[in-house]
């Protein structure tokens, strides 16, 4: 055969070889970028193949101090959707099962896909479509779920409350907001977290740790088992249970007595700082803020002019009125301004300032114990005058006032006490700079005299007032009040076990306690007297610019070795003896005796049925 002699074309082998080499080089470069440089594909592959199923831990439950179950979990169901697995389905049927309209369905899907509303959106990851389904609602859906590819049912739990009481202190759960997700990566949209009360302040302890199950999912969405036999799975860790210091029976009684009144009752075990009850009125049934009705009910409560969502016991700041007088006595004693025997005169008022503030009729001159018992205004005004206006002790009124203020701060006024509840207010104790600014540095005891009797600028929370009672009961120290008594497997914060001594020597407390005992025996607090129990108390009638005086009572019992301290504060209740004292007495009896005695049953009903209202009071559950 003849050999083709067109040698001119022989060089074309290099062109062809070059093209082959070039194409292979282009492929290798492309593969280099695809496999080595670009990391996105790896993540996509993982989200393709791995279905990361979150395993939710059960939230810690709460008991009261007597072991009564207060808050626990109930199963609830959530409909989840994985967008990329959704295939055309009978939307109408789906909507009917879930009892929603087509428009709601369309809107919900649009919201899920909207990255502004749902920044973590991924079509590969299950998204919460609808939550808080009951077992019945879910049962119907479960049966037909095969018709709706991409939709899943996830078991969650919702909170259940054993009692309709303690809403403020127990708190409630709500869906995490976008801000909360941004702050704590633990949460994903659709998660619940504590929004108030103990649920919020102990969120990290109650919630536990989520687990994860890494499942392999094939191209048709079928689960093909655990990735590497579950080697990378993490089991959820249940939340820790809490034992609260609260006595739920006491709490319930407190809420009953405070019905149709605005105000608060706080009771503390002085030796431990444990809060036995923390009533804020008006209150509401905590079950209102659970499940799908939460939003609606929350809006209703938020709109209520009596502000039932406000936890008055720690967020309400009031003039302490006469309950403040023991602090003054303590300061004067410690500073040597007075001795227990010092006597001041009172002529139906503070004569130094022309009879103002006024006082009621009683023997004069009088000593400290009697002044406390009768709640004499003049006595404490004279004391403040002797302290602030005496240039022998302090070079200036400012210096004197700073000393005065620091004592109060050491007693827990003016700053947050550090209770384990969210939103605590610090109240208000002015300092000298405040008055310097206000009175352009020209002021003395007369200018600010009303602070001596817990009026004027002074503001305190019922918790702070109760804490004073506990400090007097302890004769000079307190332990930061706290609601949680025990955390499962964890010690309490040392803040809640450490004694905090005030700047006043414990010896001075004895005379205060005696004065408060006298007040019950023959003074303003006679109504608080209980047979067999030596109750000590101090009334308060706080003037306020918003209307009728507030009625307050502060006390502890028994006189020797006290077991309980109390503060009752009834807004616009008038004299302390009208509401504060009798409610205080009933609460003390309930706690110390276990129940209300026969002779006090009538008083209990009277108090429970009394309506104190500057305006109409309607409880959210319609009960009046």
């Amino acid at each position, binding site marked *: 055969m003849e050999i083709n002699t067109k040698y001119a074309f022989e060089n074309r082998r290099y062109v062809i070889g070059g093209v*082959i080499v070039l194409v292979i080089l282009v*492929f290798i470069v492309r593969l280099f970028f*695809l496999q080595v440089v670009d990391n996105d594909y790896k993540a996509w592959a993982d989200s*393709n193949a791995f279905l990361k199923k979150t395993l939710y831990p059960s939230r810690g439950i709460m008991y009261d101090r007597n072991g009564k179950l207060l808050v626990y979990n109930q199963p609830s169901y959530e409909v989840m959707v994985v967008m990329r697995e959704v295939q055309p389905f009978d939307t109408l049927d789906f909507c009917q099962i879930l009892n929603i309209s087509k428009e709601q369905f369309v809107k919900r899907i649009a919201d899920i896909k909207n990255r502004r509303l749902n920044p973590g959106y991924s079509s590969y990851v299950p998204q919460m479509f609808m939550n808080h389904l009951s077992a019945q609602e879910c049962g119907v859906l479960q049966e037909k779920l095969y018709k709706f590819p991409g939709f899943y049912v996830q078991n969650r739990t919702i909170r259940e409350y054993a009692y309709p009481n303690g809403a403020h202190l127990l708190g409630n759960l709500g869906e995490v907001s976008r801000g909360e997700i941004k702050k704590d990566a633990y949460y994903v949209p659709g998660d619940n977290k504590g929004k108030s009360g103990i649920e919020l302040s102990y969120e990290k302890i109650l919630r536990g740790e989520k687990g994860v199950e890494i499942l392999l999912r094939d191209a048709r969405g079928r689960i093909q088992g655990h990735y590497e036999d579950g080697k990378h799975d993490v089991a959820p860790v249940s939340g820790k249970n809490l034992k609260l210091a609260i006595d739920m029976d006491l709490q319930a009684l407190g809420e009953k007595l405070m019905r149709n009144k605005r105000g608060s009752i706080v009771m503390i075990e002085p030796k431990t700082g444990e809060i036995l009850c923390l009533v804020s009125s008006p209150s509401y049934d905590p079950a209102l803020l659970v499940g799908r009705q939460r939003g609606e009910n929350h809006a209703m409560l938020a709109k209520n002019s009596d502000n039932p969502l406000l936890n008055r016991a720690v967020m309400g700041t009031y003039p302490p009125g006469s309950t403040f007088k023991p602090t003054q006595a303590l300061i004067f004693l410690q500073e040597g301004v007075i001795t227990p025997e010092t006597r001041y005169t009172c002529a139906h008022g503070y004569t130094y300032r022309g009879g103002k503030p006024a006082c009621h009729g009683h023997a004069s001159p009088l000593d400290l114990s009697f002044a406390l018992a009768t709640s004499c205004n003049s006595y404490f005004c004279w004391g403040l005058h002797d302290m602030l206006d005496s240039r022998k002790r302090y070079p200036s009124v400012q210096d004197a006032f700073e000393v005065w203020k620091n004592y109060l701060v050491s007693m827990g006024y003016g700053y947050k006490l550090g209770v384990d509840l969210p939103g605590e207010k610090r109240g208000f104790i002015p300092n000298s700079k405040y008055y310097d600014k206000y009175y352009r540095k020209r002021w003395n005891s007369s200018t600010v005299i009303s602070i001596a009797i817990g009026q004027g600028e002074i503001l305190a929370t019922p918790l702070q007032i109760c804490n004073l009672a506990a400090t007097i009961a302890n004769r000079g120290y307190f332990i930061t009040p706290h609601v949680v008594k025990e955390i499962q497997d964890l010690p309490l914060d040392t803040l809640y076990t450490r004694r905090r001594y005030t700047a006043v020597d414990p010896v001075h407390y004895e005379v205060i306690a005696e004065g408060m005992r006298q007040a019950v025996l023959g003074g303003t607090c006679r109504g608080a007297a209980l047979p067999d129990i030596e109750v000590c108390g101090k009334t308060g009638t706080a003037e306020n610019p918003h209307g009728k005086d507030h009625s307050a009572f502060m006390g502890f019992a028994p006189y020797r070795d006290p077991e309980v301290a109390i503060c009752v504060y009834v807004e616009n209740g008038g004299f302390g003896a009208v509401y504060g004292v009798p409610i205080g007495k009933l609460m003390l009896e309930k706690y110390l005796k276990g129940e209300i005695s026969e002779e006090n049953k009538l008083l209990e009903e009277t108090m429970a049925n009394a309506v104190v209202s500057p305006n109409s009071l309607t409880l959210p559950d319609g009960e009046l």
Partner: protein
Amino acid sequence: MIDWWTVLFYVLLVVAGWFSICGASYEFDNAGLFDPSGRPGMQLVWMGLSVVLIFVILMLESEVYDVFAYLMYAAVILLLVVTIFIAPDIKGSHSWLVLGPIRLQPAEFAKFATALAVAKRMGTYGFKLTTPKNFLSVLALIFLPMLCILLQKETGSALVYLAFFLMLYREGMSGYILLAGVCAVAFFVLSMKFSGVLLGATPLGELIVSCLILLLVIGLVWIERRDKWAVRILSGAVAVAFLGGWAASFFMPVNYAWIAIGVLLASVGYLVFLSIRNWVWHYVLIAAFALGSLAFMYSVDYVFTDILEPHQQVRIRVALGLEDDPTGAGYNVNQSMIAIGSGGLTGKGFLNGTQTKLKYVPEQDTDFIFCTVGEEEGFIGTTLVLLLYGAFILRLIVLAERQTSVFSRVYGYSVASIFFFHLAINIGMVIGLTPVIGIPLPFFSYGGSSLWGFTILLFVFLRLDASRRER
């Protein structure tokens, strides 16, 4: 003496292919790699039978392939035609002959028969590719099986026959035919990609393509005639026109595409004038090329919407990045890129690929087999496979070049071109560079027909090469 290098490459590729098939078809409740009911087991059977085939091919005298070339071609064409009518519909194509448990794809065997026939035709005494009659006869030999396969609705396999043009180029076909083909694809892609994109008053697609045509015209004038003056005048005209347009753009919106087309038409006139003045054909041919390109550019839309089928349109649009449809037409490519990309540098290890194991990539043991290599063996694995292929094809070219007869050389180049075409299109598709055209990756993709087809194609050439000195 048989070329052991090629045999070594062949063995390596087939073995690597078998491991990939193991990875691609591995299931959780797998019965075992050697179980003949599974695909790896079946592939082992095909491989064993291939060895038998190889022995038969090598035992036969090399003259057999020369003598019976046309006969085999005729037989294959007959088989292809019969297949069109009797093949059952499998995923829309009519290319499989079903004989009891065995399924056969005649198109896989048509390649070697066509290559033989073309080689025989081109090896005949006095054959000149440049004479139209001879050229057309070769084209007829190539296009006949291609047409049959198109009728079987196997577009991918039919396109493989375009690989013969690479061989024809080596044998003396004008490079301009290849250039025209490349230009057609380039113009098509560019006009599609930029169609409807406006830059001021200028449609970008038209501007780019017409500028490209202008550049080619000037380049061709230089290459063909070395005519300095003509090049200067043409370049000057382009520069003046665009500067004028730029100056005018201060006063009114200017459509630069019209300027480019205007210059192009003027150039055509000038080239015709040159052709007449110098009395040479070249200028008028270049002018014809320019006009043809222009016409092609304006007919792209028509070709696209009226000639291509909807699923092909979508594939092309997806490949050009004009359409993003990760669940539809783009799904295969998207998933295949995810699988490959997730392999990283060193891969996830044999049988450890999650994407392939969980069947995310469709056709992963046939057309998309390269994904498994990418996912399980990583960049190192893919590069090694590509280098192996490169060495294999270049070795075939070396072998083809050392042939003493045109018949053997043409056949050798045909084999090399076919392998190259398969490699370029298949891998390009898997890594998202070319549209999805369903053709297998030789020796890797699962399937007896494909393995046998390529084995025959290759070993007939090795048989010819072994006896090159006798011929």
